[in-house]
């Protein structure tokens, strides 16, 4: 069964139809790319998938349950996590705390236990620290744990966003332009990381990207979005040689 099934998804902002009749089916474990020219509505699709925007019509099924109408926190708890096109880390918090915030729903202790510093509090916080460090270690960022997130170099901040998203224990990870602003070396490293986390955490990844080297390098399937509607779907070789796609990107 497909992990994510989006049917006839659409959204209007006043008179503007930003996304119309968008369909996508993503199999479990797939590395899927969503591409298209600027302003095509890719991030809008992400915002609908994560509950930031309420779709005007259509349905989003994750493992058979409908996500439409749930708030972002509930959708995150159902197993969808994301990163942002413009980095949105908690800059005034440490790298470790950024990851721990995302562990919020998996570890619990009562308010009383937290206020009074009881055993359950200490045990849980220690377990959270350990888990957060494990995740950071996957990204080779363990040594940055105590730094403020805003003090990290740009590339590391992008990686931390992915680490933070993974900490919510998602089934589906949405990456919004993960390679934006990276140099070719960093992008190559990022491609390895994305492949690695897909295998290690056994998750499904949907990414938006403009860097065609990254897209063709790691995506198994692509959907092209243009003016809010789906242009075509298929394997990277087929899609990128489609004359319609070339026209959409480069013009006639």
């Amino acid at each position: 069964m497909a992990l994510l099934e989006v049917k006839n998804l659409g959204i209007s902002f006043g008179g503007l139809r930003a996304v119309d009749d968008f369909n996508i089916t993503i199999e479990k474990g797939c590395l899927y790319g969503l591409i298209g020219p600027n302003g095509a509505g890719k991030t809008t699709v992400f915002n609908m998938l994560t509950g930031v925007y309420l779709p005007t019509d259509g349905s989003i099924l994750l493992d058979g349950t409908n996500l439409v109408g749930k708030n972002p926190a509930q959708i995150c708890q159902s197993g969808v996590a994301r990163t942002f096109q413009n980095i949105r880390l908690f800059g005034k918090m440490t790298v470790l705390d950024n990851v721990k915030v995302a562990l919020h729903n998996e570890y619990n202790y009562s308010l009383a236990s937290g206020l009074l510093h009881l055993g359950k509090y200490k045990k849980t916080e220690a377990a959270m620290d350990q888990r957060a460090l494990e995740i950071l270690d996957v990204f080779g960022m363990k040594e940055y744990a105590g730094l403020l997130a805003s003090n990290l170099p740009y590339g590391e901040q992008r990686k931390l966003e992915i680490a933070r998203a993974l900490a919510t224990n998602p089934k589906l990870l949405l990456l919004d332009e993960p390679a934006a602003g990276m140099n070719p070396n960093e992008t190559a490293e990022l491609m390895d990381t994305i492949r690695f986390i897909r295998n290690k955490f056994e998750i499904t990844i949907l990414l938006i990207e403009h860097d065609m080297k990254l897209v063709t390098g790691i995506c198994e399937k692509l959907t092209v979005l243009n003016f809010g509607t789906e242009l075509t779907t298929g394997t990277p070789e087929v899609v990128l040689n489609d004359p319609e796609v070339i026209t959409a990107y480069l013009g006639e």
Partner: protein
Amino acid sequence: MGILQNILEQFINGLRSGSIYALIALGYTMVYGIAKMINFAHGDIIMVGAYALYVGLSILHLPAILAILLSLVVCTIFGVVIERVAYKPLRSAPPLAVLITAIGVSFLLQSVSLLIFGATPIPQESIVKFAGIKIGGLSISGITVVTLIVTTICMISLTWFIQKTKMGSAMRAVAEDKGAAELMGIDVNKTISLTFAIGSALASIAGILYVCQYQSLKPTLGAMPGIKAFVAAVLGGIGSVPGAMLGGIILGLIESLSKAYISTELSDAIVFGILVLVLLIKPSGLLGKIRKEKV
């Protein structure tokens, strides 16, 4: 010796009132940090706490510890319910609408208290029976000692709670980026409720300490400490927790020293004058950070 002793006494008085301002200012600053609103009804929660203590002690004849608990519980419930009923529906409304609502809630609380308890000040004996201490020639009253100890404990525990618990880091995350925090699975409504609950509990403690100091209650008793604490929060940099503590204490010291050595009548003018100066030099307050907008 005499002058030095006098200065020290004024200094300690300033610390006492300043630490109460700090306690109240924490409520303003935390709510501002998380809900991005000025809760002008916060000062009146002090009044609610004071009257709840009075009801517990003089009407229900509860032992002091239970009366304190009653005051804490009542204030916490008031804070959470006010947020749910009055502010939550306005979460995406313009800030001016929220501000006016908060002022409305403030008047509502004062008027209801006026209806129930009347305008005549009600005397209430202090629950602090401890006479105070003498160090050398310096005497410090019992309520001052208790106030300093209680407020110090409150501020340390709050700082620790915000820095070291998962609820605290959820609060910091929501304060910084509500949208991103929500997308990481944090229940923003719960976090905002918790913030109001903590702020109101601190206001209740401030109310109790206030009653013990002045031993009299009236429906508008929260207004002046409330507005001063708001000034303290702005002085320290609104949104900053250490800033609220620092701002409160500085404000208390300035007030006490200017009352003693310059003029009682002018002390408020001096306090607000210094606020104006600080804001002219550093608009974000002493510990506030200026947000740089990217163009």
